[in-house]
């Protein structure tokens, strides 16, 4: 051991010797390089197995976009369907807003009861609520839609239920985290005033959590409008159905109009919910 290294390591007898390990930086660099190499190798292997060619993919993307733009650009002719598209987009959007709001209400009740801060004191109930949230959250929405199609057939309610069930699982999970993180001090203070359980929930729990709850709910409204379009394909309702109808009959211009209207709608909703979020801080 060199004198320098000895000096850096401090007194050997000391139980918590201060070691300055300069090789640590080199080891880190090597690890980073190895990581990058591993990713590249894995990508190459997978590409070979799936017959995927990066150069071909990159080369064909522009062409695909050009084709899309040529075919999906709404034409004057497709504007004749505008009122139908708009009407169905609004109906789909309202559907997903309704599903999200109802899911949020159920989610708030469950997550209040299941939270570690203002939940019920009986631990198995809290565990059960967490389990329910996990199960519903982890079943994909498409799976719900397909399952529900069996019993409810193709109609609006099937899509609504599929949206509701996944959103409910997801929101309950987010809400549980939100309530788990509210400060316990104000809750303790209200308890010391002689407040009862529900008084504490409404006068401390909800006010402390409401901004985050609303923020999560608005986020789910946004994602659900996108998902509802997809679900409509399966359930034969709403804007998804309209898209499917024109798409499968090669009327790409109207299908393109559907896409444009949907995108505009999602952007508007996003803008509105950002304003709402900012006003709630």
């Amino acid at each position: 051991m060199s004198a320098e290294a000895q000096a850096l390591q401090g007194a050997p007898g000391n139980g918590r010797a201060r070691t300055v390990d300069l090789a640590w930086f080199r080891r880190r660099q090597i690890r980073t390089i190895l990581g990058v190499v591993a990713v590249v190798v894995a990508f190459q292997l997978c590409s070979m197995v799936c017959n995927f060619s990066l150069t071909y993919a990159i080369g064909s993307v522009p062409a695909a976009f050009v084709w899309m733009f040529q075919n999906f650009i709404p034409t004057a002719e497709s504007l004749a369907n505008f009122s139908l598209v708009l009407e169905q987009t609004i109906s789909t959007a309202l559907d997903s807003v309704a599903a999200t709001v109802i899911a949020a209400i159920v989610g708030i009740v469950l997550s209040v009861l299941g939270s570690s801060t203002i939940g019920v004191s009986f631990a198995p109930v809290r565990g059960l609520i967490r389990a329910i949230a996990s199960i519903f959250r982890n079943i994909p929405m498409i799976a719900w839609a397909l399952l529900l199609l069996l019993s409810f057939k193709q109609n609006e309610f099937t899509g609504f239920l599929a949206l509701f069930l996944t959103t409910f699982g997801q929101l309950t999970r987010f809400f549980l985290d939100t309530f788990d993180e509210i400060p316990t001090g104000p809750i303790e203070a209200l308890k010391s005033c002689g407040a009862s359980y529900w008084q504490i929930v409404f006068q401390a729990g909800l006010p402390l959590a409401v901004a985050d709850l609303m923020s999560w709910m608005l986020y789910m409204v946004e994602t659900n409008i996108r998902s509802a379009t997809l679900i409509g394909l399966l359930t034969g309702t709403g804007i998804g159905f309209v898209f499917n109808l024109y798409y499968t009959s090669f009327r790409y211009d109207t299908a393109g109009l559907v896409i444009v209207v949907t995108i505009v709608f999602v952007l508007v909703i996003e803008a509105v919910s950002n304003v709402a979020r900012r006003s709630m801080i």
Partner: protein
Amino acid sequence: MLLEVQDLGKSYDAPRRRNKAATDATSGTPRALSGVSFTAGQGEFITVIGPSGAGKSTLLRCLNRLIEPTDGVINFNGRDITHLPNGRLRKVRREIAMIFQNYNLVYRLTAIQNVLHGRLGYKNALAGSLGLYTEDEKARAFELLDEVGLGEFAYRRADQLSGGQKQRVGIARSLMQDPKVMLCDEPIASLDPKSSRMVMETLRRLTRERGITCIVNLHQVDFALEYSDRIIGLRAGEKVFEGTADETTPAVIRSIYEGDAEVMVDVPVEMPEAAGSPIEAGAFAAEPATGGAQ
């Protein structure tokens, strides 16, 4: 006496047991409180001093049962409240207000809403949950805010107030309860000297003018000496001193904080019982599954 505490004990790692021997035998960690007794009369200003971790917060929270004591008896206003069920405990808590080091306001609500929270114990579940207060209650809340010098901040959100202002809202909230006792857990620990003095003056005034009993945890000994009728010294969960400010000499203070046994000659130290009685030992033997074998 308004408040009588007898032989109060708390062990965090043992849930409530019927006897002390069991908890002593099973707990590996020292008890947060053991054998603490004292009384508090109407309008008294009592401070509890002691090093950090001595059990001051635990003691205060046992008095209104935010923490369930493991053993001992608490008598409040001539009534044993140690085992009161929830509904009746709420009624008792209305008369035992509490203020905190971190103010513990619902920071998203306004000052006036926080003050009105002091009435929750008097309201039914629905009116309280929805925040439906009577006109009298509202008028009184404004009055109290005025009294602590925050009349113009009534509609200010609590998170936009300074530390001293928050603590004064906290005091107004507790006064809203019409309390007989105020428990103050390090009320000035986060405040600058000027705000600290203001808060201490306010508390002192409450004891004089309204006959409210204040029990205050402090770690500023100088403030304790200046304001207290009586000082209680806690160390490692045990009461090691009780006396007036005059009796609290520098040597006594040193002994509370550093545990210098030599200067403790004239201070009665309550010795814990050497061993459980045969009955208690028998009770423990009947509960073999409590994790004694470690």
